[in-house]
C-alpha cells in the first residue's frame, strides 16, 4: 500500500515535470516575441535580453494596423477561413464515411489515390493548378483560394481514420433498426467523432489562416489580401523592421488563439461525449 502510494507520488512529480518543462519551452519564444513587438528594430537583438522593454513602442502595432489595412485583411481572412473550414469538414466527413463504412470494390484503390496525391510536393502542382483556375476565370478571386483549399485529401484521411475506430457493430445495429446511410452518418458517426471534427477544424483553420503561398500566387488585388500576405508585403527583406514583424505576428496569432480558446470548450465536450458512448 505504502509502496504504491510513493510510486504514485513519483509518477505524479514526473508527470508534472515533463508537462511543465514542455509548456515552458513552448511559451518562452512567444514571450520573447511579445516583448520584441514593443521594441525598436535595434533593441530586438540586444544582449542580455530585456524581457520588459524600457519604452513600449506601440507604434509597431499602429503601423501595422494602419498601413497594412489590417481590418480589411482580417475580414477577408475570417471569411475565407470560415467558408473553407465548413466545406472541408462537410465534404471530408461525407467522403470519409464512404471510405470507412461502405464496402465497395474500388475503395482501397481510390483511397490510395487520395493518399498518393498528398505525396507530390505542392511546388510542382502549383503551376498546373494555377492554369486550371485561370482558365475558369477565377484568378485574383477568393473563390480560387476556396476551391483549392476546401477539398484537400488530408481532411478525408484524418476523419476516415477516426471513423475506422468506431465499431462496425454499431452501424450494423443501426442498419437493422432501419436507419438509412445518411441517417447513420448524421445521427451516429458525426456525434461520435466530434473531437475528430474539432481536430480537423483546428488543422484547417490554422492552415488557411497561416497560408501564404496560395494567396501570394492567386491574389493581386490589395482589397482581397489576407493577413499573411498583407503582413509579408509590409515587411520587406531589405528594410526589415523586426519590432514590426513581431507585432504583425502577434496580431496574426491572437485571433486564432482566441478562436482556439472558444473551441476548447466544444473540444472538451466533444471528447467527453465520444468517450461515454464509445
Amino acid at each position, binding site marked *: 500500500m505504502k509502496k504504491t502510494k510513493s510510486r504514485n507520488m513519483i509518477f505524479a512529480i514526473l508527470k508534472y515535470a515533463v508537462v511543465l518543462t514542455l509548456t515552458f519551452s513552448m511559451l518562452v519564444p512567444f514571450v520573447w516575441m511579445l516583448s520584441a513587438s514593443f521594441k525598436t*528594430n*535595434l533593441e530586438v*537583438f540586444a544582449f542580455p535580453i530585456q524581457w520588459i522593454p524600457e519604452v513600449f513602442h506601440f507604434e509597431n502595432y499602429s503601423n501595422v494596423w494602419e*498601413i497594412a489595412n489590417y481590418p480589411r485583411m482580417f475580414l477577408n481572412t475570417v471569411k475565407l477561413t470560415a467558408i473553407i473550414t465548413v466545406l472541408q469538414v462537410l465534404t471530408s466527413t461525407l467522403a470519409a464515411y464512404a471510405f470507412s463504412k461502405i464496402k465497395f*470494390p*474500388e475503395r482501397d*484503390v*481510390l483511397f490510395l489515390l487520395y493518399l498518393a496525391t498528398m505525396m507530390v510536393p505542392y511546388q510542382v502542382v*502549383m*503551376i498546373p493548378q*494555377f*492554369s*486550371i483556375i*485561370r*482558365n*475558369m*476565370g*477565377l*484568378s*485574383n478571386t477568393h473563390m480560387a483560394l476556396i476551391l483549392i483549399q476546401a477539398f484537400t485529401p488530408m481532411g478525408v484521411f484524418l476523419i476516415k481514420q477516426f471513423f475506422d475506430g468506431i465499431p462496425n457493430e454499431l452501424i450494423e445495429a443501426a442498419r437493422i433498426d432501419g436507419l438509412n446511410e445518411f441517417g447513420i452518418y448524421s445521427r451516429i458517426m458525426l456525434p461520435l467523432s466530434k473531437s475528430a471534427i474539432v481536430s480537423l477544424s483546428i488543422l484547417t483553420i490554422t492552415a488557411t489562416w497561416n497560408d501564404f*503561398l496560395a494567396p*501570394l*500566387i492567386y491574389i*493581386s*488585388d490589395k482589397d482581397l489580401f489576407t493577413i499573411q500576405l498583407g503582413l*509579408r*508585403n*509590409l*515587411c*520587406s*527583406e*531589405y*528594410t*526589415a523592421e*523586426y519590432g514590426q514583424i513581431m507585432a504583425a505576428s502577434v496580431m496574426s496569432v491572437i485571433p486564432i488563439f482566441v478562436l482556439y480558446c472558444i473551441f476548447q470548450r466544444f473540444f472538451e465536450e466533444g471528447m467527453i461525449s465520444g468517450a461515454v458512448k464509445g
Partner: protein
Amino acid sequence: MKKKLLCLFMAAALALGLTACGGNGGNGGSDGDGGSSDANAGKDDQVTLRLALWDYEVDGPTTYEPIIKAFEDANPDIKIEVVSSPNADYETKLTTMLSGGDEVDLFFAKSNTALPGVQSKGFCMDLTPLFEENKYDLTPYGTVIEQQMTYDGDVYALPFRTNDWILFYNKKIFDDVKMEYPSNDMTWEQVGELAKEITAKTDDGIYGYSFSPKMGFIFPALAGTEDGFDITTSDLSCMTKALDWILDMQESGAMEEYAESVSMSKDQMYFMKGEWAMMWNGSWFVQNLNNQEDLGFEWGVAKSPYWEGTEKNGFVTSTPLCISASTKHPDEAYKFLTFMCGEEGAEILATTNLVPGYMNDEVLASYTSNLNLDESSIEALTNNVTYSFGEPNPVFSQIISAGQKEAELVLTGNETPEEFVKNFEAQRAELIENAE
C-alpha cells in the same frame, strides 16, 4: 471495375475541359480576367497594362508611383495595373504568372543576373525590331545594354536603374579618431588596414568594415580579383585572395563574424545605427540614408575598392524591365517601357537618389543636385568603370548561386579558400555539363 474507374476519370476530365473552354470563351479578348473591375469599367479604347514588380508597398510611393502617374497623365488611354509581391517571393509569383498563362505585359527581372534565365526560356520580347522601327537611341544607357541586356545581338530589356557598388562611410567615426575619410582610389588591402586601425581606436561594438550578411552583398568583390573575370570560364583560384582578405578581417575583429551577423540579423541598419565605420553596398542605399530623418551623423561615399594588381574599377548591377513575349498590347507596352526607362522616367527617378539606367547631362545634373553630398562623394557616384560577372548564359545565375553557397562555407569556417576553389570548380563543371 477498372473500366468504370476510367469512365469516371474521363467524365471528370471532360467536365474540366468544358469549364476550361467556357472560361476561355467568356474571358477572351479585352476582358483580361486578372484585371480589376474598375480597369474594365473605363472607356472601350482604354488599355490596361499589367506590370509585375516587387515590394511596391515599401518602394512604391518613393520610386514607382510618381513615374506611373506621370505616364498615365501623358497617356490617358493607357492604365497601369501594378502586380506586386514581397521581395523574397517575387520569383515564385512571376514564374507562376508567366508559366501559368496569366496576363503580364511588362515585368522587372530581379537583377541582371536573373535576366539570362527568363530570356533563354522565351519570356521576354525581342525589342530590337521595335527600337529600329521607332529609331530609338540606346546610347544614353551606356555599356549596360551591351554587357547585360543583349543576347545574340538582340536587346531584350532596358535598365530601369543601375547600381554601383560603393563604399559608404560614417564621417563621425572617422572624425572622432582623427583619421582621413576613405578616398576614391583605394585598394581592398588599404581598406582592410584602415578598418583595423579604426577598430583598434574605437570602443567595443564598433567595426571598421562590414556588409549586410547575405552572400549577394560580398560575392561581387570576389569577382573583382582578376581583370576580365568571367564566372563561367575563368580560373577560380584568383578568388582566394578576396576570401583570405575577409577571413583576415573577421579574425582581426575589424569585421563582425558573418555567422554572428546572420543570427542577429545585423544588416545595413547597423550602419545607420553608427556601429559600422565603412560598408560596401549598392548605390541604392543612398536613398535609404537620405530618407532617414534623424541619423545622428554625417556620411559620405567613396568609389568601390579594387584589388591590388587589377585595374581600378567597381561592380555594377542593373534592374532590367522586359516586355512579356505574350503581351497582347506590344505597342502600348513599348510606350510604357521607353517612358519608364527613358528620359521622362529618368528625370523623375533622378530626384529620388536612385541612379537611372538612362543617363544624359540633365539627368546627371538632376541626380547629383539632389544627393546632398560632398563633392568627393558625388564624384564617387559618377563616371565609374565597371565590371560584372562576365558573359551571361542560361546557367549563369545557377553558377553564381553555387559560388555563393560555397563562399558561405568559407566565411562560416566550414571550408578553406582552397577547398572553395576545388568545390566550386567541380560544381561549375557539373552545372555546365548538365545544362546540355
